[in-house]
């Protein structure tokens, strides 16, 4: 049954005893965004701010904040973080900066609070660095994107649109002439997304044939994170071959060799 773990049987706040939980490798990824005036973003990218390098400062602030999480959140355990990364992607569509924080450790409790704190403080620091030129900035999109390890298992935020704009842009094709591409298991993790729309036109423009092999080659070229190796493919939920021809509207799923049973 789902319940609030930080409340005891009397409804009082307490710190959860995790001493009996197994030590496992855990990772959490969280996002935040700062929406700003287009000229503020331009100034950040041009490096013209009086306070210096905005993005580098926000990144360090995020990393420092992750390490101070138990000081800020009352019932949060102090953790020995093994890795903290804070990435900041300028997004002209927003317009603003998208922040993604990842925290890792081998321990007995999850690291999503650390990732959320890192992303939040990086956003606050962006505000602090830029408030002299833009007071209307909006901080948003603070959420957990992914959790791995631990008792409750792997979890992925379904509408994960946090991928950097550069990776997503080549596939923003028109809906009526597109392939619906899906990824499972290890491939989903390599791609950091479970679904992708690929415009038929983007394959044709790059001279790739409209077949499973053509789509696979195109994906490997567009997404270097996608490792090569033995893959299985299904078209419209039926097992397919590399030579299988594709047409607009097809659902094409890529996955590693199956390991059920």
């Amino acid at each position, binding site marked *: 049954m789902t319940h609030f773990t930080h409340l005891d049987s009397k409804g009082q706040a307490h710190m959860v005893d995790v001493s009996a939980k197994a030590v496992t490798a855990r990772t959490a990824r969280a996002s935040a965004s700062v929406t700003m005036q287009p000229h503020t973003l331009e100034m950040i990218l041009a490096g013209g701010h009086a306070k210096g390098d905005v993005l580098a400062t926000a990144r360090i602030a995020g990393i420092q904040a992750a390490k101070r999480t138990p000081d800020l959140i009352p019932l949060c355990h102090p953790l020995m973080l093994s890795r903290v990364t804070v990435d900041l992607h300028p997004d002209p569509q927003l317009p603003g900066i998208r922040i993604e924080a990842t925290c890792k450790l081998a321990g007995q409790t999850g690291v999503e609070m650390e990732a959320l704190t890192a992303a939040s403080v990086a956003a606050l620091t962006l505000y602090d660095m830029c408030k002299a030129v833009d007071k209307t900035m909006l901080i948003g999109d603070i959420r957990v994107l992914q959790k791995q*390890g631990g*008792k*409750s*298992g792997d979890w992925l935020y379904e509408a994960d649109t946090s991928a950097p704009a550069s990776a997503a842009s080549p596939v923003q094709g028109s809906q009526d002439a597109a392939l619906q591409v899906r990824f499972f298991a290890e491939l989903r993790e390599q791609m950091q997304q479970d679904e992708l729309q690929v415009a038929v036109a983007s394959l044709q423009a790059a001279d790739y044939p409209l077949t499973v092999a053509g789509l696979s080659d195109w994906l490997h070229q567009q997404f270097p994170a996608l490792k090569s190796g033995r893959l299985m493919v299904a078209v419209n*939920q*039926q097992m397919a071959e590399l030579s299988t021809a594709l047409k607009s509207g097809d659902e094409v799923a890529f996955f*590693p060799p*199956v390991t*059920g*049973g």
Partner: protein
Amino acid sequence: MFDIRVQAQRFDCGVELEALSQQRTDVGAVASFIGYVRDFNERPDVVALTLEHYPGMTEQQLRLIAEQAARRWPVLAATIIHRVGRMEPGDPIVLVAVASAHRQAAFDACNFIMDYLKTEAPFWKKEHTRTGDYWVSSRESDTLAAQRWEKTDV
């Protein structure tokens, strides 16, 4: 005739096996296989595993495998239940049970379904160990096990 389920909840083997022969008198044999989570695999100290599937396609593939078995052997009924989500060592993962008039057909069809489930049904296992998580690799021995049915004459 086929009862195919992909679910997160545990199943009750006793209930499922009884259901195969209930209210019929033509069943002479029920053969079954139950797969469990082991605490060792590619690495020792497996603390849990997470099973992922392809909703829609997985159920369809399991049905195709059961239909193939029924074309080779006189199968009267079959149940395939495969769990998904997080499981811990000792937890049951999969149940395959086949009812037939005679034992040989039930044994063979059950074996056949399990071999093809291992190589053609879209399920993926991620193992969680004390030293980290990894996706389980497919085994050559499973591919060979499924291939032997291609050579055997019924």
